[in-house]
């Protein structure tokens, strides 16, 4: 494969990208190839040293933010036929609510997960507040001459203080997990878009 063929192949795979992103990628690889050739490689060697066009295109596409990818993909490659437009319009009472419902469910699941995280933190805050409260209660009980009750409250206060710390670790772990899950899901959705594009 020579430089021209390589760039043409790359351009074909990046068809779904916005024009400016596509051009920037092609410029970059053209420059790299020129520099490799200047460094003493033949055109064929330079192209071969870059690796497979598919892998390169995949890497570029994976780095484009999802909304941009969707927007570029929504742009039809050919003009739609009249019956297709009619079909989409007529079918809209069916597919539009379904689409909205799907989005709503996905969003609800995500919000729910964060609600769990939030409630865990709220519980931790409650522990943090009640720990000193218990200790203060213990002091006042001790002063008012009820040492048994004071000891009980002191114990409860200390247990709560310990729980505050342990619980916070649990909270952070859960928050991190939900965050990672969200990121993984986004990557998964992105991969779906890209894979379809390659075919």
């Amino acid at each position, binding site marked *: 494969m020579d430089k021209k063929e390589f760039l043409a192949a790359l351009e074909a795979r990046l068809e779904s990208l916005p024009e400016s992103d596509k051009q920037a990628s092609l*410029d970059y690889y053209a420059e790299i190839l020129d*520099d490799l050739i200047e460094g003493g490689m033949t055109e064929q060697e330079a192209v071969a040293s*870059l690796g497979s066009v598919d892998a390169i295109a995949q890497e570029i596409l994976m780095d484009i933010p999802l909304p941009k990818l969707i927007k570029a993909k929504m742009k039809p490659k050919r003009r739609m036929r009249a019956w297709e437009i009619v079909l989409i319009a007529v079918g809209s009472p069916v597919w539009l609510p379904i689409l909205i419902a799907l989005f709503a469910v996905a969003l609800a699941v995500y919000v729910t997960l964060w609600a769990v995280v939030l409630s865990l933190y709220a519980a931790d805050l409650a522990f943090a507040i009640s720990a000193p409260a218990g200790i203060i209660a213990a002091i006042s009980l001790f002063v008012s001459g009820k040492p048994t009750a004071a000891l009980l409250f002191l114990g409860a206060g200390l247990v709560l203080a310990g729980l505050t710390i342990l619980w916070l670790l649990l909270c952070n772990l859960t928050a991190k997990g939900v965050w990672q899950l969200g990121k993984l899901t986004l990557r998964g959705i992105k991969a779906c878009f890209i894979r379809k594009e390659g075919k």
Partner: protein
Amino acid sequence: MDVQLKRGLLDICVLAAIKDEESYGYQIVKDMKPYVDISESTLYPILRRLETAELLTVRSAEHNGRLRKYYRITDAGLSRIQAFKEEWREIMSIYSFVTKGDPETHG
């Protein structure tokens, strides 16, 4: 190595490759290769990411009758390297504690 960690490290390496003077894609890869496993195709998304984050700026200049893009580090990029150094000083001291007394890590 952890993917996320490696990604972050490569960002720093690219910044380090341009920290003294501006450079271009091919030269950056050439400078990094003896130290890090990197290819031209891995470099590209990193450069774009760093440009978006304003850690480097890009200018085009003519070279042998064609355009070449030169990357220059910004102040934000320099302080990023500084932050990395401080962070790793701490990590290295933890490392030396963890490996203290291991026979195979001497020297």
